[in-house]
């Protein structure tokens, strides 16, 4: 084998080693949070909405897995998930909060998840949500909206929550 081929081979080995160390992981989100319109009501004239905080009646589900087959098979990777939102139509007084549930399905029961069990606001800049290790599927995420009031313009509001997973 020529010296040139040797160098290229070495480079590729180094390259694959780096990408292997990187252990690319992916996140997928399924399900859509639903807010029941009946939650936003007024008991009597003169009052504000009865509930100024409403919680979604349905959840979305996050799954974390490794792209690489061998990483998927092993549990040898850690990750952290951040969350932020991009507003399509959102009022600045409204606060969107999320929290995760615990009844996820791990990979051979070896997965671990830390943090994210308490309500936390989602802003337009990424903030840490939770972390974990090993592939984990269907982590439930609940949503709630705070500060609902008749003082906020009546409208259909929409925002997108973006979850990003990083390797640890």
């Amino acid at each position: 084998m020529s010296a040139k081929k040797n160098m290229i081979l070495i480079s590729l080995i180094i390259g694959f080693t780096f990408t292997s160390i990187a252990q690319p992981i992916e996140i997928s989100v399924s399900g859509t949070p639903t807010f029941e319109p009946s939650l936003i009501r007024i008991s009597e004239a003169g009052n504000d909405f009865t509930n100024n905080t409403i919680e979604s009646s349905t959840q979305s589900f996050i799954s974390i897995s490794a792209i690489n087959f061998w990483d998927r098979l092993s549990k040898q990777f850690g990750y952290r998930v951040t969350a932020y939102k991009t507003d399509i139509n959102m009022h600045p007084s409204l606060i969107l909060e999320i929290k995760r549930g615990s009844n996820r399905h791990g990979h051979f029961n070896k997965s671990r998840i830390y943090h994210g069990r308490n309500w936390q606001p989602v802003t337009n800049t990424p903030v840490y949500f939770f972390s974990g290790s090993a592939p984990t599927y269907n982590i439930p995420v609940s949503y709630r909206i705070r500060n609902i009031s008749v003082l906020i313009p009546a409208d259909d509001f929409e925002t997108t929550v973006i979850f990003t997973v990083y390797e640890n």
Partner: protein
Amino acid sequence: MNMDLYNKYLKTSVVLLLIAMHFAAYAQSDGQADVLFSIPEVALIDIEPSGFGIELSLAAKSGGGLPVEPVVSSGGKIWLNYTSSLATGSNTRSVSVQIINGKVPSGIILLLQASADAGNGRGKAGIPAGRVYVSTSPQVIISGIGRCYTGNGPNYGHQLSYSLMISDYAELDFDESSTLQIAYTITDN
């Protein structure tokens, strides 16, 4: 291997290494969830205390030649509460009053005045129109209502004060009495 060839291979290796590190640096992935919800428009109005009637009468002063005086003999303190939620760009709302059942006795005018908002709620409450004649056609008593809630119950919102005015003594009939049903309506402007 001469130095030129070595340098060339080294450069190739560095480029491949950087490409690998580039992929490594982008070892992240995104997922998203759409969040949709609605805040409805609301226009609610109420009179407090509920089911409370007001009795108005005319009383003659002692002594001949003196005028009769309208008297509010019971009630007199009723309060108008409301909640108003408006869409972006919507106009304000107003409250009007009208007689929907009954007839004001001859020679008398029924008047209504709303006070300023008591200030126990939040938001942009309406502005009283002053004293208005109450008739079978709607008369605005409060206008400029934005997004607000006045608070619920007596002493919240606007106090409503009814009074009588004699328009024609010749038409007065002291044996005549009348029960009126009055409706309050909140409307978009």
